[in-house]
């Protein structure tokens, strides 16, 4: 969707890349023939205007209705990637859901390679994250746990922050691979999340290979 490119650096950067592509095509066509360059200019401009007009005709934003919660309700934000279907994570969620009316939001960051991230090519990463999320939600439903989910930003901290803006979580559960195999642990994501967010954080380590899952730390 087209956005105002001057609201964030990332949008401005994306706009720059589009501008480079736009003029590269026009210049290349102009070298072949001046009138072809003009035709490409008109075609690309018309396409850009059409995309912009199309993006403006979307439905109005959904209103967020804030309602009072009962004392027996519990909102849990889960952030996980490849380990999103791990047994240890399911066990922890099942335990936390006991005796309360649980509302679980699973956020799966759309992790991407640095190169693809730089060129804003995140469609593949989002599609892969969506598949993992769908499989995870299906498993949670099988376990009788009420959960919904969304694909988040490639940066797990940013993904959690985005989710917390609309989902007032009582606590956060972060699921990672074991130390030595986890990029998130290498980047101190769990520590950084504890520094950044007020909600208590539970870190679950999921060893997918051995299926010897264990919980490392309980809520602070």
């Amino acid at each position: 969707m087209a956005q105002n490119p001057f609201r964030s650096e990332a949008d401005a950067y994306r706009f720059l890349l589009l501008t480079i592509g736009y003029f590269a095509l026009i210049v290349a066509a102009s070298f072949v023939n001046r009138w072809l360059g003009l035709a490409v200019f008109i075609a690309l401009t018309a396409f850009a205007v059409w995309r912009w007009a199309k993006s403006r005709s979307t439905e109005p934003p959904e209103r967020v209705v804030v309602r009072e919660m009962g004392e027996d309700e519990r909102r849990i934000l889960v952030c996980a990637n490849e380990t999103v279907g791990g047994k240890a994570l399911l066990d922890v969620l099942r335990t936390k859901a006991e005796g309360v009316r649980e509302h679980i939001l699973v956020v799966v960051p759309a992790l991407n390679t640095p190169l693809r991230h730089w060129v804003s090519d995140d469609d593949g990463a989002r599609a892969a994250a969506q598949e993992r999320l769908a499989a995870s939600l299906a498993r949670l439903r099988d376990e009788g746990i009420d959960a919904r989910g969304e694909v988040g930003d490639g940066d797990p901290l940013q993904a959690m922050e985005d989710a917390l803006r609309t989902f007032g979580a009582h606590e956060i559960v972060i699921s990672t691979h074991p130390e030595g195999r986890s990029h998130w642990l290498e980047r101190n994501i769990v520590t950084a999340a504890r520094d950044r967010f007020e909600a208590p954080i539970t870190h679950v380590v999921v060893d997918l290979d051995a299926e010897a899952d264990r919980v490392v730390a309980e809520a602070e």
Partner: protein
Amino acid sequence: MSAHAHAEHAGEHHGPPTPHYSSRLPPAVLGMFLFIASEAMLFGAFFTAYFFVRVVNPEAPGWPLEPFHLPVYVAGVNTAVLVTSSFTMHWALQSIKRGNRNGLKAGLVLTFFMGLAFLLTQMLEYARIGFTPADGAFGTIFFGLTGLHGAHVFVGLTLLAVATIRAFRGHFTAEHHHGVEIPGIYWHFVDVMWIVVYATIYLI
């Protein structure tokens, strides 16, 4: 009971009054749109003059007209330097969003020096290009357009210098980095304008 609490209890209003919007747009967005519109009109005036000069010379065998010659390849390398500086700017922002201050510093320093290299190369180009703003309409418009862009680069370099100094003093964190985000937006805007100028004046 403190005076503040007493005032709250009495229902008095504290702090600035609630903003009254006379437009459906928030003031920040409206301000940015007005800024973009003013810049578009400023550059648009120069481009209009440039294309007018081209249109009134339809029989010209090539462009620019003799005896003007533009250093296309030098300017091309300069363009590559400026575009690369946008990549490093983006890298700097992504680094600080992840809490990587070293990446932020390296990105900002690289961006600053590449911007400086662009500006110095352009000044060198002016000195050796062989014509002046007084040499006809084309000379006037060429120096006007590229000089206007150069002024924007200078402003961008000033913003980058401030951001770089602040980065080395540890002012930015993963949560608070507006002081880098805004110069980043401006820098990409300067880059976009140069793509338009280079493609239009030097290539097409």
